[in-house]
């Protein structure tokens, strides 16, 4: 078993468990469908986090040839991204679905700052990872810096305005979609 294969076992496991959180969460909402009040930005966030899980798993293959000797610090720097994704996936669903009406708008508005805080950590951890592990230029990270500054807004500002949350979630969805359409990275 090569070092990369061993490393990917745990990383894939955590990503897989994050996906399980999302699928369980959606399935649980479906079983209580008649009691659920859906909120579009929340639904889009679920789709985006799902996409981020798959994208991270796909992109990780690059480390099979980018890294020769695996040190604990390198492994740890790769592990934090799936961990943040797992926590984001968990933050997207209510702890209990026992309430008569499950109002996802109310739930989203109560928790979106924690959710985006971990989203911000995702972007911030990926910048040094790209520079140090993949030898990318600092100037190539301008799009990440821009994304981080946009995600910082919902972390800092508390707002219940619908247009803000619709705009933010649609922007994130389109960013993910454009990434796949433009780059369409090969394995």
């Amino acid at each position, binding site marked *: *078993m090569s070092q990369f294969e*061993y*490393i990917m076992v745990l990383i894939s*496991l955590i990503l897989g468990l994050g996906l399980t959180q999302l699928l369980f969460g959606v399935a649980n909402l479906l079983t209580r469908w008649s009691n659920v009040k859906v909120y579009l930005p929340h639904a889009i966030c679920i789709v985006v986090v799902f996409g981020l899980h798959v994208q991270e798993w796909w992109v990780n293959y690059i480390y099979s040839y980018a890294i020769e*000797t695996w040190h604990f610090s390198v492994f740890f720097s790769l592990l934090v991204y799936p*961990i943040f994704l*797992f*926590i984001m996936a968990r933050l997207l669903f209510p702890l209990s679905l026992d309430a008569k009406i499950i109002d996802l708008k109310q739930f989203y508005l109560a928790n979106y700052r924690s959710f985006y805080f971990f989203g911000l950590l995702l972007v911030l951890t990926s910048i040094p990872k790209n520079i140090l592990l993949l030898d990318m230029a600092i100037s190539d990270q301008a799009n990440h810096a821009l994304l981080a500054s946009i995600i910082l807004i919902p972390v800092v500002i508390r707002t219940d305005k619908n247009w803000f949350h619709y705009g933010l979630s649609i922007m994130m969805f389109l960013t993910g979609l454009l990434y796949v359409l433009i780059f369409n990275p090969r394995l």
Partner: protein
Amino acid sequence: MEPFEYVSVLTSLILGLGITQLLTGVADLILSHKKIKFFIPHSLWVLNVFGFQIQEWWYNYEYSRRIGIWHMSDFFFLVTYPIILFVMARLMFPVTLAGGWVDLKSFYFKNFRKIFFVAVFLPIISIPQNIIISGRSFIDELPKVGFGLILLYATISGTENKYFHYAFSIIGIVIALSYLLFYDPAL
């Protein structure tokens, strides 16, 4: 598939599920943070157990070189450590966060003897593992003996001296961070 690859599937799975317990617990605390009273030694122990899980998984790769022929006894010997870590991870969080305030200080003092009792088995298992399989000397294992004795003292005495719990949890984190920063082992 080589024997080590086959064995590491189950050990990685148990470690992965232990990590999931911790991440789920942390995410649930974040979701309910408005009604949670945090307690620093509890938070640090969560981090410590997380560190133990990652370190154990990392260290397990050494057995791909150390063990040529795998017997069932070897497997049982090695799988007990992840099992103990899973139980510890499970004990770190209240079973339910429903209801009113959750005071993690009182939760910690109610449960630390159980957690530490389970943790006593970590050095009991890992010291013979390191000596028999990895070929280390007993002198190398003395810090673990000290760690086990402190755990045993706290379990038996049931001390609720907060300075002890602050110091013990902080020392654990400092040792884990020093391991990562200064030792940074290669796989």
